């Protein structure tokens, strides 16, 4: 079992644009992602999701992929949405266990 260095992209943003973000990510080559709902506070004020309309719901998206892929995704999303929508985008190093499949598009 090998551990392979790769990147994890995290996007915290409004649930309103989740579908759009996932579409961009998919188009730029991310085949997998993990989601969870979060609360938080930032420049746009508190986002605690108490409202019936869901305007104040936030979602966190994690995508583990090659540095190239995640940087493209991050850049595109920030440029397209972060003027109008709340959120933050960051990258981290991770070591993924590699198994038979070539899930992460890393060349051998």
């Amino acid at each position: 079992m090998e551990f392979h260095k790769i990147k994890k992209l995290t996007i915290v943003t409004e649930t309103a644009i989740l579908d759009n973000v996932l579409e961009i990510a998919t188009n730029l080559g991310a085949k997998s992602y993990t989601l969870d709902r979060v609360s938080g506070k930032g420049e746009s004020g508190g986002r605690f999701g108490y409202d019936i309309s869901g305007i104040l719901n936030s979602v966190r998206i994690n995508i583990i992929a090659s540095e190239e892929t995640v940087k493209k995704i991050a850049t595109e999303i920030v440029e397209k949405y972060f003027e109008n929508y709340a959120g933050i985008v960051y990258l981290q190093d991770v070591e993924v266990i590699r198994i038979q499949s070539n899930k992460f598009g890393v060349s051998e």
Partner: protein
Amino acid sequence: MELLLDFLARFLAQLQAPVLAFLLAGMLISAVNSKFRMPEAIYQFCVFMLLMRIGLKGGMAIRDGNIMEMLLPAVFCVILGIGIVFLGYITIARMPGIKKDDALATTGLFGAVSGSTLAVGMMTLENEAIFFEGWVPALYPFMDIPALITAIILANLYLAKQKKDNVKVEIMPIIKDCLRGMALTILVIGVLLGLLTKPERVYDTFFNPLFRGFLAVLMLTSGMEAYRRLKELKGVGHWYVGYAFLGPLTHGMLGFGLGYIAHVLVGLSPGGVIMLAIIAASNSDISGPPTVRAGIPSANPSVYHGTSTGLGTVIVIALYVPLFLALGEMVFGL
């Protein structure tokens, strides 16, 4: 003078009515910063119960009713939905210091409809034993969707002109987005079930008897939320406060007027006229905001969400539901 006294008497009576009391109680809960939160699953279920009840009843009424009767009121709803937005475009949107996209987003929500205010109106009429056609509340989408579409189109045309861009706003995706939202999905499914099947028993044993209770729970929750949204409004211009008071009054009057025409022309019942006024006066608090957020991204949600959910809903329920009830009772001598 007597009118005023009558209105005041009704208003005080309505204030004793638990529906409004639960709304105010909810505001109090938020005001004292209580840790109590209504679980999200519960208030979503409240919304489901209310809208399904409205839809089922509406569908059954359509099934048993005369489709021709409904046509004119439906057309009036479309006119109201579009008209309210244009009205906002030439009033609030022109005020000094007001961003046009914020104003259009707000006015779109005030053209659209609130399921919970609708439910309050129904309960109020039922308490007063005033008949209304069951299908009137189900006209909801005929006002809601046109209002949101108009607001989104006007805002995008305006923004495109600013940037000297060409813009092409597509209507179909907005309609789909509205219908795919929680509120309209449930309402439309309810109407279909009422229209095509015989849900009388489940209606009589579940959706109808629990209506009053779930409305109380939703009012409490709406009150808690209204108070929190009010705080967002702090930075926002006082024009929006004025709009939240005067907009619904005007819209409700227009609704009452068109309803009266329908009363004369196609025999819409007095209760139906009052109901139409309440629908027109109400402003969207559940499914409108996300549609607007997606359709007018540059508009500041604190403004429209705050004005509509924080102020509008409370004002309509507290002031205008009793007002249009009193008006109807006087006009029709009920």
